């Protein structure tokens, strides 16, 4: 089983799907000859041609809005938003159109599109306010839309294939810091990872840490840091933010009776709020301590200067410290 980076797994998933089904196509800014600013579609233009590897004009509403039409008329578009920070011009087309086409037509029309968006920031990213943002909180509130964000290369390939084959719109969020930092084994064969299932990345009994993306990575590091202190943290990779795997979350909390949610987005109304609210309502009896959220500061996105970026985003040390406090509660 070959080892590869998250980015390679994403490219491989799209490549195999385009080989398998000629209705599948990619569109976005610089996805053609350049192969995308991160190289996710490297080589596609030469292999699949301009019609199926479409360099669009510089307009995100066009990218999503035209993809809706393409999907309605028999294509299966994978729309790339160059940076998740630039998805907002397409907000109306995603929320009002793609996510509602099926409901508003009472099931008559569907919208099988996948929207890929690199997201996330941090010191290595040097993206500043507009090349670093987490956008999952906005979109996980939207009925009719599925939201996925992989952590392992294995999941990246399997979840992206599942997204492309899904008959409904899926927002596929890829953390930029994981693109090249995470390597893992990826099966050669064709497989999918089901949308809607979380994964227990580390078994534990003392407390449950729920995370995704880069913060899952930091949480796993934090869990090792406190392991020596008789704190046995269970770390769960949510993977799919909507539909959320509530069962796995509640099961873990019923076992550990303590819960922490870690996310890179701004704290207020970030995704951790929903996870916390579900636990507080459905696993209250099991709870043996406050539900703790570790998140970024409530200032507009990640600042550029390293000194400021470091102060903005949580890391393993901050998570470990919070875990110690909660364990001691």
């Amino acid at each position, binding site marked *: 089983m070959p080892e590869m980076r998250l980015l390679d797994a994403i490219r491989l998933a799209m490549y195999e799907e385009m080989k398998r089904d000629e209705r599948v*196509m990619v569109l976005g800014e610089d996805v053609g000859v350049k192969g995308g600013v991160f190289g996710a579609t490297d080589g596609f233009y030469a292999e699949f041609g301009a*019609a*199926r590897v479409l360099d*669009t*004009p510089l*307009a995100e*509403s*066009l990218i999503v*809005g*035209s*993809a*809706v*039409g*393409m*999907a*309605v*008329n*028999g*294509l299966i578009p994978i729309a790339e938003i160059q940076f998740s920070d630039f998805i907002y*011009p397409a907000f*109306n*087309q995603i929320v*009002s*159109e793609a996510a*509602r*086409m*099926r*409901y*508003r*037509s*009472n*099931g*008559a*029309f*569907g919208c099988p599109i996948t929207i890929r968006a690199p997201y996330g920031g941090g010191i290595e990213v040097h993206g500043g306010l507009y090349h670093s943002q987490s956008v999952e909180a906005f979109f996980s509130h939207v*009925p*009719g839309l*599925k939201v996925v964000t992989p952590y392992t290369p294995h999941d990246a390939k399997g979840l992206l294939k599942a997204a492309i084959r899904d*008959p*409904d719109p899926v927002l596929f969020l890829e953390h930029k810091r994981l693109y090249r930092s995470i390597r893992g084994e990826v099966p050669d064969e064709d497989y999918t990872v089901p949308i809607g299932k979380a994964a227990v990345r580390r078994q534990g009994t003392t407390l449950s840490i729920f995370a995704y993306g880069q913060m899952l990575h930091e949480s796993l590091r934090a869990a090792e840091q406190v392991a020596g202190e008789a704190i046995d943290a269970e770390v769960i990779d949510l993977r799919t933010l909507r539909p959320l795997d509530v069962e796995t979350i509640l099961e873990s909390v019923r076992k550990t009776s303590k819960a922490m949610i870690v996310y890179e987005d701004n704290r207020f109304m970030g995704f951790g709020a929903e996870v916390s609210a579900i636990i507080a309502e459905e696993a209250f009896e099991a709870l043996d301590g406050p539900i703790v959220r570790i998140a970024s500061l409530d200032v507009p996105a990640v600042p550029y200067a390293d000194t400021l970026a470091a102060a903005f985003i949580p890391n393993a040390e901050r998570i470990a410290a919070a875990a110690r406090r909660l364990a001691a509660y």
Partner: protein
Amino acid sequence: MATREAKTKISATRHEALGLSADDLLAMYYHVALARALDERMWILQRAGMVPFVISGQGHEGAQVGVMWATDRQRDWLVPFYRSLAACLVRGMTPRDLMLGLFARRDDPSSGGRQMPAHWADPRHRILSTSSPVGTQYLHAAGIAYAAKVRGTGEVCVTSIGEGGTSQGDWHEAMNFAGVHKLPVIFIVENNRYAISVPVKLQMAVKDVADRAAGYGFPGVVVDGSDVLACYAAGKEAVRRARAGEGPTLVECKVERLTAHSSEDSQEKYRPTNDIEVPRSIDPLVVFKHYLEQVGVMDEARYTEIHGRIKAVVTDATDYAEALPMADPATVTRHVFYEG
């Protein structure tokens, strides 16, 4: 008499030159008149408190029937907006289908009563589901046309919008993209001089939206929306271009809004009386009837017969829809995602 003869001759050559028979003319007239009658009935029902809301296409029917008549009703697509009642009829939706939408009944083919009236959809007739946000449909139409082109289906996609909607960014993005790829799409602008209360002079600095097409690399034409044959001719040429791979056409139809914006609006507040009382000479229904008389296709008897038929059809559609139940509350959670 001589003059009248002459007049007839000249006029007659008009529809014949376009390849339209007398029967075509009568069928086209039927759709214009049917759309008007349905629309008027909808207002009566709303005023009578039978339904909460109506938004209208009165004044736009000639443009819609004319252009849509040039499309292939099996193959081509329509991405409508809320005034497209007449266009939907031409595409094959029935008066019953439309009344089911007005009454928001369980069997409403557009949305099962989930959407406001005039938010048409019908997969059987390739009419894409209409949403409320103005402008989004232009991008859907461009996408449908892109798929038609790469899949080589030969389909043409027609979409429509009001002149106010052309101010939206989506409108520009769709025009630009369709121009770059010479897509088989027809962009209709039904310019009725008002966006609710906002007059066209506050909407744009130019007289004709059609002037913008050149900036996107394809032709834009202006037609008199009360002249059904002129609209048909424009539609026919646009379809030819699209089918031949020559790319999009912007067709701007100058029409009149014969009602308030919707049943929620009172236009007396912003529209001068002389502007509201549109001369019959620019009502497409009147103008088209006059043409049919001139060319001897319409006479008293036939007129009575057609309008009698329409009255019956409208009444049947109304009674049929009204009698059916509303959507079952238990279905409110259905079709959020694909159900297989």
